[in-house]
């Protein structure tokens, strides 16, 4: 495919965004990112340990990938904004995947806090990619605020349940003037293909690859699903019908006439 995904001022060939967490080890993570042919990888911003060695994954990742910091684990506007500002200072990027969650059990977005956090970060010249509910109203509000993309969930983070509300996702795609990236909840390649067939511009995933029995192979499957789904969307699917419609003509078929 020669078309690009454009978010703010950045163009990407790959429509698969991958997280860097929960892999069995670092080599499998790197192999999986490679197999997924991703260009954008997400990282979290966390306190440095004052006692032990702090791993440095950025040196390894930055050579090959566009690094998208997230505000994972933030519950309040204040926490999310400060985390984003620290991310900008640490990584010299204006891009941020904005997460403001409501509680630890379902990790669902807290819209009451997400909207003002997005507003403040846009005002501070961030390119905000908000993780949000599969809710067209919320997505429209985020777009109106000035977010660079919207990232509705397929299902709760790490659940692997796949897209739970296809109608809403399709509705979000139709109304949006910014890229729609499915974020969280995909479990396997068909979930990714469905997201792309619905017209989403990309998919961000982590656990579906990291917790697969063979992460590298699953990453390859995800990359193929992205392309298959995207091509199917661009091709324009046939209409759905309630009844059969023969594909082979009846003309010239043999016809055995019953003898009496």
């Amino acid at each position: 495919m020669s078309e690009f995904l454009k978010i703010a001022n950045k163009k990407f060939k790959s429509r698969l965004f991958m997280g860097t967490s929960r892999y069995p080890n670092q080599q499998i993570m790197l192999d999986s990112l490679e197999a997924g042919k991703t260009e954008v990888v997400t990282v979290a911003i966390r306190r440095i340990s004052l006692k032990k060695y702090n791993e440095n994954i950025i040196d390894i990742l930055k050579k090959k990938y566009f690094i998208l910091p997230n505000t994972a684990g933030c519950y309040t506007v204040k926490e999310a904004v400060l985390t984003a500002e620290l991310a900008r200072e640490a990584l010299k990027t204006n891009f941020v995947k904005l997460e403001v969650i409501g509680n630890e059990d379902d990790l669902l977005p807290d819209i009451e806090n997400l909207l003002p956090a997005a507003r403040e970060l846009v005002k501070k010249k961030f390119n905000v990619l908000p993780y949000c509910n599969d809710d067209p109203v919320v997505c429209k509000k985020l777009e109106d605020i000035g977010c660079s993309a919207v990232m509705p969930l397929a299902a709760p983070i790490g659940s692997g349940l796949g897209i739970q509300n296809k109608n809403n996702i399709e509705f979000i795609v139709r109304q949006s003037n910014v890229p729609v990236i499915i974020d969280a909840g995909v479990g396997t390649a068909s979930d990714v293909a469905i997201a792309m067939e619905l017209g989403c511009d990309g998919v961000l995933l982590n656990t579906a690859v990291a917790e697969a029995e063979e992460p590298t192979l699953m990453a390859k499957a995800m990359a193929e699903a992205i392309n298959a789904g995207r091509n199917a969307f661009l091709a324009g699917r046939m209409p759905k019908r309630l009844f059969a419609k023969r594909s082979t003509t009846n003309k010239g078929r043999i016809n055995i006439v019953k003898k009496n």
Partner: protein
Amino acid sequence: MKKKLLINGKNTFVISETLLNVLSEINLIDNENMAIAVNEQVVQKNNWKNYKIRSGDTIEIVKPLKGG
């Protein structure tokens, strides 16, 4: 006199006057991708050298780690 700081959620006592000196006093090796906030305000790296620390300051020292 020692200053009492809250660094990454832990009470820490230091004699240093500046943020950069605090880092060496607590044996934190400077890292290219480290970022610091004092009292919820980011302090840019080029200001660490001159940033004066006061007793009671809350300091967050972070870096990017694996995440989804």
